[in-house]
């Protein structure tokens, strides 16, 4: 599992496409920005971008504990799936939304907190973590 984070519009997706040569590699690209949700694991390489938006959806209906349990369960499921064949990989991309002023709306504060936790869990579950700053990667795990 590979987790990629960094600020919005910092070139994270572009970096992933280049790093994994996705133009020439079969893969499935799931984008929460286009309203897509994590579905079947029917490719060996699966990219899931916009994790923070998925967390926002969840945070409307679920409590912190539930969000975290659900996310950790998902991560564990993906880790199991990766183990079933050598070339299987999940790539998670999440925009960092945690460095601004405390949001005015309670719902936004909840979303931001839940995203922070989710990113920590994703980083813990991943074998590799990269931080992207305007297209430049910093390998932090």
């Amino acid at each position: 599992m590979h987790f990629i984070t960094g600020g919005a519009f910092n070139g994270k997706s572009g970096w992933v496409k280049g790093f994994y040569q996705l133009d020439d590699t079969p893969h499935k690209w799931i984008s929460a920005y286009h309203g897509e949700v994590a579905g079947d694991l029917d490719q060996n390489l699966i990219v899931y971008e916009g994790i923070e938006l998925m967390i926002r959806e969840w945070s409307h209906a679920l409590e912190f504990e539930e969000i975290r349990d659900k996310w950790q369960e998902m991560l564990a499921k993906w880790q199991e799936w990766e183990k079933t064949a050598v070339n299987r990989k999940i790539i998670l991309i999440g925009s960092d939304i945690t460095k601004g002023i405390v949001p005015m709306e309670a719902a936004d504060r909840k979303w931001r907190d839940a995203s922070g936790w989710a990113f920590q869990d994703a980083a813990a579950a991943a074998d590799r973590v990269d931080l992207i700053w305007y297209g430049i990667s910093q390998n932090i795990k």
Partner: protein
Amino acid sequence: MAEGSLIFISGGVRSGKSSYAERAAAGLAIKTEGKLHYVAAGKAYDPEMEARIQRHQDDREKSGLNWTTWEKPSALEEISENFNNQDIILFDCLTTLLNNELFRAEDVWRNREFQENLSSDILRAITEIRNKCRALIVVSNEVLNEPIGKNELVITYSKILGMLHTNIVDMADEAYLVEAGIPIQMKGEPE
């Protein structure tokens, strides 16, 4: 230092990015016996802004070096012809320029073509100035690490700024992220 160098420096508010950029420019000017230019995108709309601009000017004067100041709140491309290969240019800052350009006329920012022209004009201006001078230092802000929300103007602004930063870093010889006054080199050969 090769001719036509481009250096990108970014950081949060009060991170010390401008002072670091000034030190870097001064260092280059001394090393290459170059001339220092300060290109300001900021315009004084209120006393707070005036004071801020004044403080920056005083700082530059105190440095004992000779800075030529240009005020260019928009249409950056217009000044490129003033420079030559002895010049070290500090441009401060990209976020302010983008602000000024996006708010030039009421609703024009909604136009997709306007947005595209705006970013390509800015990138072209940077390339032109860079090609004329010894070194161009572009200063900008870290503003893309918080929820962007649903405001279309904010989304447009963020998207263009992120795209500009990514392109400039790609073109740059060196790029720095300044945290609490400490420059972290993200691109280029370490000194």
